[in-house]
């Protein structure tokens, strides 16, 4: 096993994977409690359009995806506010438009190929040094920003009106969360792919919620599930010669199942 940890590509995958998965888990906790768990799914589809745009314009796909995802998340938020649409409806509109845009652009560019497919399914073991650096730094920034604002975000999530009456700038925090979610989804895309990024946002956080008796515990347990899933998921990918995206997600679900059984025992 030690041999794998010696490979440069494995170290890179592990580092980026851990940071991104923890960012996803912590952010996912807030999204779930805001009943906004599917925003990740929607933004991931929009991100597909962003990647295609990047390939079409011949710029860094990750950068193009970031810009498109941030714009889309803000648009979804505005549409909910101004048009009185339910969140899932706004997400439904944007995710399908993003996907359609992606298909059209990729076809126009004549590059509907392996490049784009790698974004759909993720390929963390093929991640290059620049992307590792970028992902790790951005994921670390997401974690630090959330932890620095954690009490305000918790207040906003628990009781928006009281938070506002306490002088919490709720509208600013909404924008902050939208931007952080976009960044995290784009990063998650590199780890598990567009189709599975919801798993990183939802499963570790949901597992953490099963056993947590406090918000701090929920943050801790979710991060723990995310980290263990990445480490064991990557190892399983090597041993079983499977895509890492699949094994990471399946491991997180195994842990979710274990947490569920533990909860059943403690709350019969």
């Amino acid at each position, binding site marked *: 096993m030690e041999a794998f940890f010696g490979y440069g590509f494995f170290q890179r995958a592990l580092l980026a994977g851990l940071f991104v998965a923890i960012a996803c888990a912590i952010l996912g906790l807030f999204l779930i*409690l805001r009943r906004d768990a599917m925003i990740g799914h929607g933004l991931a589809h929009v991100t597909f359009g962003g990647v295609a745009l990047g390939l079409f314009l011949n710029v860094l796909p990750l950068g193009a995806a970031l810009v498109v995802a941030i714009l889309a998340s803000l648009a979804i938020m505005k549409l909910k506010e101004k048009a009185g649409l339910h969140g899932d409806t706004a997400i439904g509109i944007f995710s399908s438009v993003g996907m359609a845009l992606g298909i059209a652009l990729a076809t126009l560019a004549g590059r509907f190929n392996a490049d784009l497919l790698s974004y759909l399914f993720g390929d963390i073991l093929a991640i290059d040094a620049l992307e590792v650096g970028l992902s790790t730094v951005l994921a670390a920034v997401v974690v630090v920003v959330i932890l620095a604002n954690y*009490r*305000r975000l*918790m*207040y906003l*999530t*628990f*009781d928006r*009106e*009281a*938070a*506002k*009456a*306490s*002088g*919490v700038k709720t509208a600013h925090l909404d924008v902050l969360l939208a931007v952080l979610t976009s960044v995290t989804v784009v990063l998650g895309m590199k780890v598990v792919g567009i189709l599975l990024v919801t798993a990183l946002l939802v499963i570790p956080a949901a597992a*953490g*919620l099963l056993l*947590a*008796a*406090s*918000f*701090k*515990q*929920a943050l801790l347990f979710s991060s723990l599930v995310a980290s263990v899933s990445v480490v064991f998921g990557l190892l399983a990918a090597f041993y079983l010669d499977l895509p890492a995206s699949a094994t990471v997600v399946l491991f997180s679900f195994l842990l979710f199942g274990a947490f569920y059984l533990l909860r059943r025992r403690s709350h019969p």
Partner: protein
Amino acid sequence: MNEARELIRVEGLSFQYDSIPVLEEVSFSIARGDFMAILGPNGSGKTTLVKLILGLFRPTRGRVLLMGKSVEDFKAWSKIGYVPQKATHIDPFFPASAREVVAMALTAGPPKPWRGKREEDEAVALALDRVGMAAFRNRPIGRLSGGQQQRVIIARAIVNAPELLFLDEPTAGVDAATQGLFYDMLHRLNEDQRITIVLVTHDIGIVNKHVTKVACLNQRLVFHGSHADFCQSEAFKTMLASGHLVSHIH
């Protein structure tokens, strides 16, 4: 009225929601030390009035002064505690402990980086103790009864040692015995801690026992004055006769 004694001044306040008038030309003031009830039937604009005072809604006309400052410019939110109407509808799966729920309000007002963790813990413990919930501090909020949750929400509202406390229908869904204890607790906060209390309710029974001032609302302010005067007023008789107000005589 002496400026320093006046905590809230509402001047010619009107509010429309989707061009339907909710409040019209409401003017009154609340003095330091008051225990005021805002009374009125359903849909009379009580909750809207509180939200306008707290700056959660913007008035169509008129203005609100909080501690002498226009509500738009008011920054000292830690001096005001608020228990919203929907406090009884708490997400049972929210993972926060009672202590964490109370600590949420420590974010109120300007940042206080000098305040250490120990000081914060002490403030939270004191607030929970005041509402008789010290023993439940580590219990997740979802695993407390409705009445206990309500007390935690009140602890949150008083954790910053506010000068003014707003409570919007705080005993909705709480049994009569618990309600009695609850209002005794509010009475102590008003008497001993000198916290000015503004209570939104449609229960006249409570008004009888604890309240010193009454503002009676039905889109317009139909009465504003002392509790004794209210009981003699036309507004009181009309409301009682029309069955708009509930009366649990304690």
